[in-house]
């Protein structure tokens, strides 16, 4: 479903060229549960940005669900992000001063969906992460784990092809982190494709496949049970 061929990404930092990714070849099938690991500076974040269509690679081709991402305009990329990708960030990135129901419904606004349907879908997504009783609370009234559940609900609400999580447990204590990983495990069991970017070995331990990056290259790609 996801196919990266010869992906490279270089940044121009003044006069020096910074190679973030070099010749990445990776295939991810539907319903995989995969961890992208590596030390900081290994290119994990760049990889995440490329996979999430937040950034375009400098070289190579990226095919997502049969669609070639290179050469898309900014708005077309936004459309791909909106329909095919569910993002989960380390710092949750919820909208402040907005109820969690509205937070979860936000991706649906950009699809031109009626408010009543948005609300219904958001409540259903919140029920999936066990927060159906908190729909009218604001993010600052919730604990970190609950906020991350809201973020997961928001990622799920548009029925994406793939969930892309960037250090989803980085701001959580180990008990809450295990709970969140449990949510991911359930979603994987329901057929969701999940990619988790992390440097935490414990998190990677939950995944079925581990891809290790170092200096912008894939140095290890193994399956685990």
């Amino acid at each position, binding site marked *: 479903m996801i196919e990266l061929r010869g992906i490279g990404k270089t940044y121009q930092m003044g006069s020096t060229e910074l190679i973030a990714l070099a010749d990445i070849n990776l295939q991810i099938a539907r319903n995989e549960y995969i961890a992208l690991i590596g030390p900081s500076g290994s290119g994990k974040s760049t990889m995440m*940005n490329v996979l*999430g269509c*937040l*950034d375009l690679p400098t070289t190579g081709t990226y095919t997502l669900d049969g669609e070639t991402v290179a050469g898309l305009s*900014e*708005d077309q990329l*936004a*459309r791909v*992000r*909106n*329909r095919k990708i569910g*993002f989960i*960030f380390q710092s949750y*990135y*919820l*909208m*402040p*001063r*907005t109820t969690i129901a509205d937070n979860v419904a*936000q*991706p*649906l*606004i*950009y*699809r*031109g*969906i*009626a*408010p009543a*349907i948005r609300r*219904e*879908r958001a409540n*259903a997504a919140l*029920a*999936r*992460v*066990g927060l*159906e009783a908190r729909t009218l609370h604001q993010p600052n009234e919730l604990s970190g784990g609950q906020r991350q559940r809201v973020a997961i609900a*928001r990622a799920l609400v*548009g*029925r994406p092809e793939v969930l892309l999580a960037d250090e989803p447990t980085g701001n959580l204590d180990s008990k809450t982190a295990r709970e969140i990983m449990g949510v991911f495990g*359930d979603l994987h069991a329901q057929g969701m494709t999940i990619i988790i970017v992390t440097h935490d070995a414990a998190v990677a331990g939950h995944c079925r496949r581990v891809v290790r990056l170092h200096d912008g290259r894939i140095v290890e790609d193994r399956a685990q049970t």
Partner: protein
Amino acid sequence: MSSPTREDALESAPIDEGNRLQAWFYAMQECLRSALGSIRSHRMRSFLTMLGVIIGVASVICIVSLLQGLTRSVMNEFQGFGGNALQIRSETSREDWLIGKWNRLRPADLELVKYRVAGISNVTPMSGLNLPGGVRYGSNTSGAQVIATTSWFQLANQSYPRIGRFLTDSDNDTRRRVVVLGDKARTDLKLPENPLGTFMQVGGEWFKIVGVMEARGDLFGQSLDNYVVVPFETGRALAGPEREPDMSIMLTVENLDAVNDVTSRITALLRRAHKIGPKDTDDFKVETSQSITQTIERVSGTITVVISAVVGISLLVGGVGIMNIMLVSVTERTREIGIAKALGAPRSFILMQFLIEAMVLAVIGGIIGIGFGWLLGVLAAKMIPHFPPPAVPWWAVLGATGFSALVGMLFGILPARRAANLAPIDALRHE
């Protein structure tokens, strides 16, 4: 996790995407909601941002309302004139005036118009008399203007007797010595509330009071009730043949379509009678009530536009204030913009969101400004003695609101573009 049946049903149901128009409508709705939310969460800042627009709009509305109130009260004076009413009056050109020559209309002109123009009626002469001895009652004197006219005056002036009667044609024909008082003249002369039948002096002669007119109040601090009316022929006799006063003639044209014909007929007649050469200008003027009110409207309209334009410039200053705070807001909300973009908000949505926020700020400011300006106008009119009450016309309200929205949009473009052009990863990384 929760009840699987409901979830599954929703999971399998397709997400119903609306058509483009619906999508646009929902997006607008969302932008408006977010704009109001953002304004509400920064109440003080939003108010200060609006202040420029509030002051600008308030000044425009205040001035327009005062000018319009003034115009309206002047126009009311002419309302008694129908579209078929004509007024003939003398006109002294600048050249004549410089050599001390005053043109006037004479009783002969009145006869001419009365008997040589077809299709007219209600020919009413009106003359202001300046009589030695003035207006007296006992030892009380009044500076009231003495008007010599006939019965149609009350219709033309839209003022009628409060008590007693107005002059009649027979008063005029028989040069009866009767007088009708304006209310100010009555109080100045310390006459009782009902002075009917009392005798008073006009120009040293005794006149019987037969009526008192309704009070009409003030205009520009001038009382509109400080006059006494005597029959035209009586007045002429009183003035004597040597000091024949100037006069104006009011008349109605029986057929509205004939107004222009009658006007040119009168002009031709009077030019011949006054021996005006083909190249010389008229020493009189034939006016319809329409041309008078049109002139007033034109003048007041021009003044309104000029002053509004000058004051409207202050609205631009308000716009700069909005632009400034919107730029700050974009910087503050960079992270939110990044999140929205990551979740799939297209460029146009972000652009619209910030444009609408700027417009909402400006329009709310405009609406507050309208209310404030109207209040200011009322206060100003109260404080200036004898000023008519202000009037805020609907076009000023619409115009002020629309112009505020325009200012918001214009000055919202730059911040909105900045927001829309943010790269999603940079915006997300923004601390």
